[in-house]
């Protein structure tokens, strides 16, 4: 099947050109229609910058190169007006902090209606009750009351529901969710994640969810992409990657989560620190912390190895980690 989103050789650099900081480097990624892809990584891994590059919302000083094809259009070559017309209609996004992502001075109803009016072609914004319908779809309790309320009168979880409703009001082909549950309590997180799955079923949208919460990715996504220091290190079907991770970083990351085995809780920390993007080593960025690193890992960048159907990784020791 033709991918909905095809990213080829995407690079994002900040800072002066003499000494660039590569926040995203050589990323290739496909997202199929109606697919849910999870991007996992720690802070500094470039996962949020990657989203910004797709949505074209990075600061002006960011230098983006490569190709981003979205349903037949090359996003990086569109002019600002064309890009703005795509946003909210075919390609949409939910941001990390629900507490500050709604305008405090307008009612929920006003803001939802604004999106409907501007983004839906069928005039849903003009129809009375359109906003209530949107809120009902994201299972917000008492939507008739909420449309008259202001953001500060809603809890974080409720606000995130409103934002998901706004972002998906026009049934976009692709929704990007950047850390959508990080600011929320555990009992609310799952309720938001479920919305994304429903969205796929009801609107046929594909979803990219970016988070450091591995458990969210494991339970929600079809495919997982693990990033480290701006690069993809491993990508594959979610079940397979979580069951049998191949890249030493993925393995270490999973092992560092506390897990209950019998009566004991185990965790294995990854030694060392995330490297400074401004002074990356020539070889694999993870080599300094990697338990199985060899000389070649420190000297040269690892090539792509396809280890199974749609399961690929970047590691010199790909053969041995099976």
């Amino acid at each position, binding site marked *: 099947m033709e991918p909905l989103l095809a990213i080829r050789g995407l690079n994002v650099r900040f*800072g002066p050109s003499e*000494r660039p900081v590569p926040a995203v480097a050589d990323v290739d990624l496909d997202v199929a229609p109606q697919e849910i892809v999870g991007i996992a990584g720690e802070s500094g891994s470039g996962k949020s910058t990657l989203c910004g590059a797709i949505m074209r*919302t*990075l600061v002006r000083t960011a230098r983006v190169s490569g190709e981003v094809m979205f349903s037949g259009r090359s996003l990086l070559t569109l002019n600002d007006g064309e890009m703005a017309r795509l946003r909210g209609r075919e390609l949409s996004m939910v941001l990390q902090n629900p507490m500050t992502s709604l305008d405090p001075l307008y009612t929920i109803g006003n803001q939802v209606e604004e999106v409907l009016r501007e983004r839906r072609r069928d005039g849903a914004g003009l129809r009375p009750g359109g906003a209530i319908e949107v809120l009902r779809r994201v299972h917000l309790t008492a939507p008739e009351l909420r449309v008259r309320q202001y953001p500060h009168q809603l809890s974080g979880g409720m606000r995130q529901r409103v934002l998901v409703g706004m972002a998906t009001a026009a049934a976009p082909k692709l929704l990007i969710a950047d850390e959508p549950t990080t600011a929320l309590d555990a009992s609310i997180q799952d309720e938001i994640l479920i919305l994304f799955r429903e969205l796929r079923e009801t609107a046929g949208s594909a979803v990219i969810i970016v988070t450091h919460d591995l458990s969210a990715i494991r339970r929600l996504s079809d495919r997982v992409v693990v990033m480290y220091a701006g690069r993809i290190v491993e990508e594959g079907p979610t079940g397979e990657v979580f069951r049998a991770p191949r890249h030493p970083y993925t393995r270490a990351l999973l092992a560092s989560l506390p897990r209950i085995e019998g009566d004991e809780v185990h965790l294995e920390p990854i030694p060392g620190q995330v490297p*400074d*993007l*401004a002074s990356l080593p020539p070889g694999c960025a993870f080599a300094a912390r990697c338990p199985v690193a060899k000389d070649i890992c420190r000297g040269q960048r690892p090539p792509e190895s396809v280890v199974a159907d749609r399961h690929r990784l970047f590691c010199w020791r790909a053969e041995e980690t099976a």
Partner: protein
Amino acid sequence: MSATSEGSGLGPFRRRFTWGRGGRPPIVATTICVILVIAALAGRNFITLAPDEVDFTAILTPPVWIEGGSWEHLLGTDQLGRDMLSRLVAGARISLLTACAAVIAGGTIGIALGLTAGYLGGLAEAVIMRVVDAFLALPFILMALAFVAALGTGVGNIIIVMVLTNWARYARLVRSEVVLIKQRDFVLLARVAGLNRRAIALRHILPNVLTSILVLAILDVGRAIILESSLSFLGLGIQPPDVSWGLTLAEGRTYMTVAWWLTLWPGVAIVLAVMSFNAVGEWLKARFDPRGQL
């Protein structure tokens, strides 16, 4: 969302390669400030003519580059034949002296009271802050006039007046900063560590409000210069024989049509001084107070 310095590994990089927050420091403004301070402290050593030396043979001499000007009086003379340049330098002394005295003394009082109010809270805070409100209940120039009405004019009184109109703003700023900092984790942890109140106030809270205060103080020098020159212009500030830019301007007003330099030079001096101090202050503010609370 978009890549910010946090988490994208840009932090140390920025420090190495750019001027950082606030951009390039204002070199011209800093130089003017330094020149003014030198003029105020040691100006007497550079000028050959006394600022109050009357010379009836040289009344209203224009600046040197205008016909009738003389090298003896580079910027011309006033209605009594006094040298304008000498009067500007002498004016710098009074203007900066009153401004700095007002800022330093007002700042010290304000810091002490603001710190007390913010840190102790309760009744002390309520009382201090209501008094602060009363001192800020009038636009500052009217407040200053009310004090002048009571205390009188002259250098000494003007300094007192400026301290009285100034301290309350410092107290208000310090208190609001202290109230914020007091709730920060490192202050709570200092209590947990067993530090006494005095040590916490002086070692943890004061150093962290000092930057804001310093920035406010530098921005305030310009404001104080304007206040002093305004009072002097109104005839309610510095009195002759002392020299002040505002006073010189007021005296020259009568001759505005025949001798523009009497009103132009003091005005230019005031504008340059105020702009320079403001530019330095703004730069410091951009650099050290990104929240923009001042």
